[in-house]
């Protein structure tokens, strides 16, 4: 190999990679508008981003997986702890984390700023980012449920039923809690669709229902547990 050949390797390598990269950058800009729902990028969301930067949140937390790893990822924080959960943690970190091994600083964030932060997190949570992070995925069962389903030979719905605490109140074949009704023949009374609605928000069906809404279940978990219960006839 001569020095001239080496030079051409350098030039072609650099140019080809740059062309691919810059070309895709242009296309990415076009597509990000839809993927990140730019139409919902309101002034409130942008102000929320400013607050997020003002308080240096990103040097403890990650968002979209980037930042420091000292505190939980905030991509799906609204889904995980809700707007009130965020407000409580930011206003009173000394109470919220009183028993935690790690603390969050009291930064005296103004109420309006917290509202903006919540708008920002809500917007980020809706970005179509390939279903990351896995622990917050709405489209899959947790690995614990998957294992139970495969290892114990039960249906995915039965695995959700067992691992999400349904049996603290309800029973099957005499096993389980007595606070709620036994569910051995629930499929005779309700269809899959009705069960799904009931589990998601009991009060929307029966205003006197005592059962708490199961909002933490992922869509897939809700579907599987409804399928399982709907077949108990």
């Amino acid at each position, binding site marked *: 190999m001569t020095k001239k050949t080496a030079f051409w*390797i350098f030039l072609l390598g650099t140019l080809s990679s740059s062309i691919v990269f810059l070309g*895709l950058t242009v296309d990415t800009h076009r597509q990000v508008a839809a993927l990140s729902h730019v139409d919902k990028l309101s002034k409130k969301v942008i102000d929320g981003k400013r607050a997020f930067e003002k308080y240096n949140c990103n040097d403890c937390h990650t968002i979209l997986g980037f930042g420091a790893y000292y505190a939980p990822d905030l991509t799906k924080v609204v889904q995980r702890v809700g707007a009130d959960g965020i407000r409580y943690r930011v206003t009173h970190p000394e109470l919220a984390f009183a028993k935690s091994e790690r603390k969050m600083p009291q930064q005296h964030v103004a109420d309006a700023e917290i509202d903006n932060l919540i708008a920002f997190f809500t917007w980020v949570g809706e970005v179509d980012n390939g279903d990351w992070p896995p*622990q917050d995925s709405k489209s899959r069962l947790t690995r614990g449920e998957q294992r139970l389903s495969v290892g114990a030979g039960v249906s995915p719905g039965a695995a959700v039923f067992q691992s999400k605490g349904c049996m603290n109140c309800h029973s099957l074949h005499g096993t389980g809690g007595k606070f709620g009704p036994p569910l051995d023949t629930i499929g005779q009374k309700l269809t899959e669709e009705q069960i799904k609605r009931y589990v998601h928000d009991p009060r929307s069906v029966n205003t006197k229902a005592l059962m708490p809404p199961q909002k933490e279940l992922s869509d897939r978990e809700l579907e599987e547990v409804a399928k399982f219960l709907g077949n108990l006839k």
Partner: protein
Amino acid sequence: MEYRSQKIANWYFTIALLLFVLQVVVGLWLISNYVFTIPQSIVDVFPFATARAMHTNLLVLWMLLGFMGGTYYIVPEETGREIWSPGLAWFQLIALVTTGVVALIGFVFGWTQGRPLLEIPRPLDVVVVIGALVFLLNVGMTMFTAKRWTVIQGTLLGGLLFLALLYLFGIPFYENEVIDWYYWWWVIHLWVEGAWELVTGAIMAFIMMRLTGVDRHVVEKWLYVEIGLFLFTGIAGTGHHYYWIGAPKYWLWVGGAFSALEPLPILLMVIDTMHHVRHRQTKIINPHTWTIAIGCAVFHMIGAGVWGFAHTLPQINYYTHGSQVTVSHGHLAFFGAYALLNLTVFYFAMPRLRGVEIYKPTRAKLGFWTMCSAMMLMGLTFGIAGVLQSYLERVLGMGYMTAQSYMRLWMAVTLVLGVFFLAGVLITVFDLLSPKAAVEEPD
């Protein structure tokens, strides 16, 4: 030393070393935050976030000062003339260090841009840009007036120009978080896997040529191939940061494929370093400088090449993204590729700048091996913590703090290793600041 103006490099190196010590001290505080429960009253005043901003900015600052000092040392020898304006070199050093100190103090009082690694507030960014322009002007004018162009010089100037240009993408406020991260990586990734690699390649080539007496033609030929491969894999390889940010899906393919090739140029660097040592034309006078250079190549390969490769495949990255695995990779790669490069330059230039031609390597060896062993083990302990985190939190779906409690033991081990690392750094810095001449051995 042949040129008087090279002396300024010594100041750059000295300040860089002091900042390096400070960076490691802050690092020990950070790891303590993982091991112990810090009371709310301290967290309110000096949160983890502030210390983290210091740790990363000190890293960038000392390494850039090292590169700049290295450039001021190399350019006179490459061009065969004094630096165009030693006054400007002084001005730029003072401007940069002042900015750094103001920024560090500012962080404590919450003055920050609030974006990881780019925390330096925007008004100070202006000073950084002016400093960079002055530096480029000074180096560029030295080369222009000398009218003697070499590949090493070209690569060095190209790398520095690229480095300065990319910094600009980190300055604006981006309204869209997705676009924000998109360009954040233009600074971070294209720096460390583009611009900095060019500077590294050029500096390594220069030192190799000087120490081994291998023909310039051979060294520069390898340099072309290396930087060609670095840029080919590195530029489009930026895509491995775009998997989960809300960018189009094709980045999984582009990022995955190009970054799978990223170890190649590093491997080439290891091979050609070994090759040059074997075919050396002159007697190596300071063998320890060589040990560091080879250590740099090997660590670079493990930290950046192997560790980077291990978690850039999308299927793996889905679980390891944003975990302590990244921390493990970051520490090994930065220490291997850039801290050891800077130390190679320091050991090459600093004793000579102080009139010591052949230095006594006892303390240097002790410092080097302490640092390298401690960092290698830290890479492993961070890595174990990261794998635990990926499995417990991401795969099993455990809560964040529950998963962290299983990692605490490994963070405690890291703290102990960190103390050893600091000891190694202190020995090295002390040795560099007061080099001892070797006692002449009768031939």
